[in-house]
């Protein structure tokens, strides 16, 4: 059995009175690509935000490799590890946002190198060399000195992916990485993600690109109303969904 990179168990998340995640459990093995699909408001982003500690959970457990980063104690309170340990756990994952969120005042190269040098205290020469290789891989080697505002959306998102990769994460999360892009630019981003999948990068991808999800993932999760309604092999979920709600969602989707 290959090792589990991420385990989320019985995750509860509510905003004031509304429960947005209702007892979600998800574990991701090394090299696995998991796609999360579902209607708007079903809690997909919230799940990623809880996994990446941008939001605090109200119940459940989050574990990366051997480190339990958050758990619910006997009194039912969620306890997170201390700040130092949390910073360490954060080095296990990367997150690619829908809106890229590049740092506009840094050049492309500096976007990639700043965090590894400042946060991970790595050697700047080595970091820069790795960054240049990543830029080459993402087809941006001639953009190292450009600024984000000079790039197309597709290029910016590729920089964001390279920025996350330059910290050598064990798992990479994507929250609708192509939703902010013009249709003709989605291909170049999906191609990079596909290549990462081929290299056995562990990834969790929230997406509305159904055919891409079907082609790239090993497992598909359908979420609705804060629950995981169905999960399984992409051929099964897309080809022969077992749940009525999944069928309905995919049917509506294909009509759009």
């Amino acid at each position, binding site marked *: 059995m290959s090792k589990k990179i991420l385990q989320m168990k019985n995750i509860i998340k509510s905003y004031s009175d509304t429960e947005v995640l209702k007892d979600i459990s998800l574990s991701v093995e090394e090299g696995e690509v998991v796609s999360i699909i579902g209607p708007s408001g079903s809690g997909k982003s919230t799940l990623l935000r809880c996994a990446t500690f941008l939001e605090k959970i109200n119940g459940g457990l989050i574990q990366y490799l051997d480190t339990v980063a958050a758990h619910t104690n006997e009194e039912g309170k969620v306890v997170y590890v201390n700040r130092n340990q949390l*910073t360490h756990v954060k080095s296990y994952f990367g997150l690619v*946002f829908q809106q890229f969120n590049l740092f506009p005042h840094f050049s492309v190269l500096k976007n990639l190198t700043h965090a590894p040098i400042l946060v991970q205290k790595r050697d700047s020469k080595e970091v820069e060399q790795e960054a240049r290789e990543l830029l080459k891989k993402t087809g941006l080697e001639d953009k190292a000195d450009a600024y984000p505002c000079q790039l197309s959306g597709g290029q910016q998102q590729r920089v964001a992916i390279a920025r996350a990769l330059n910290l050598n994460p064990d798992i990479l999360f994507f929250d609708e990485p192509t939703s902010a892009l013009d249709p003709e630019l989605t291909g170049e981003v999906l191609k990079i993600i596909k290549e990462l999948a081929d290299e056995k990068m562990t990834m969790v991808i929230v997406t509305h690109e159904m055919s891409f999800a079907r082609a790239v993932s090993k497992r598909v999760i359908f979420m609705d109303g804060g629950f995981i309604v169905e999960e399984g092999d992409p051929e099964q979920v897309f080809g022969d969904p077992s749940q009525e709600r999944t069928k309905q969602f995919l049917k509506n989707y294909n009509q759009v």
Partner: protein
Amino acid sequence: MSLLTMIIKMSEGLSRTCAIFFLTLIFSLPLGMVVTLLRRSKNKIISSITRAVISVIRGTPLMLQLLAITYGPYYLVGLTVSRNKLVPVVVAFSINYAAYFAEIYRGGIDSISKGQYEAADVLGYTKTQTFLRIILPQVIKRVLPSITNEVVTLVKDTSLAFTVSYQEMFTIGKEIANSQTSFTPFLVAGVFYFVFNALVDFVMGKIEKKLNYYH
């Protein structure tokens, strides 16, 4: 008194005008940032006190604040008013301008998208690193035009030091005008301020241009 003598006499006060100007900037620019951070504090008491103080400072004339800080200690606790008025003048100006800068900074900080904080957080930056390396540089660029406006106003506001008879350029000019019953010193002062502000515009324009490498 000849025009030339007037100009020479008033020029002697220019160094004091410059002292008010530069010292005020040196103190109020960073102080404004501290005030903004207090104003944005999660502690409700701290943020509301700061807010109240800002609104009093912005809601009352600088001239009044100058008088209060220069003569207040004498009337309140009987401290003698020091002969060198530079200290109270600079204190009053710095507090006043810090309040304005604080509001400008606050607007700048609020205009940075949440995504910048979130990206930095996921990349492992601490709160301090995020503020200093990611947020602050972008804020500075965004607020620069508003800062320039305030700096131009400060040049002209230095003339308010005449209310406490601090011998800067305008105070000297006003005294000459009174003794000679002449309007000329005011014209000379006008030219001085205009030239000073032309320099300010030039320098601030250079800085803005330097930060124009991204938008």
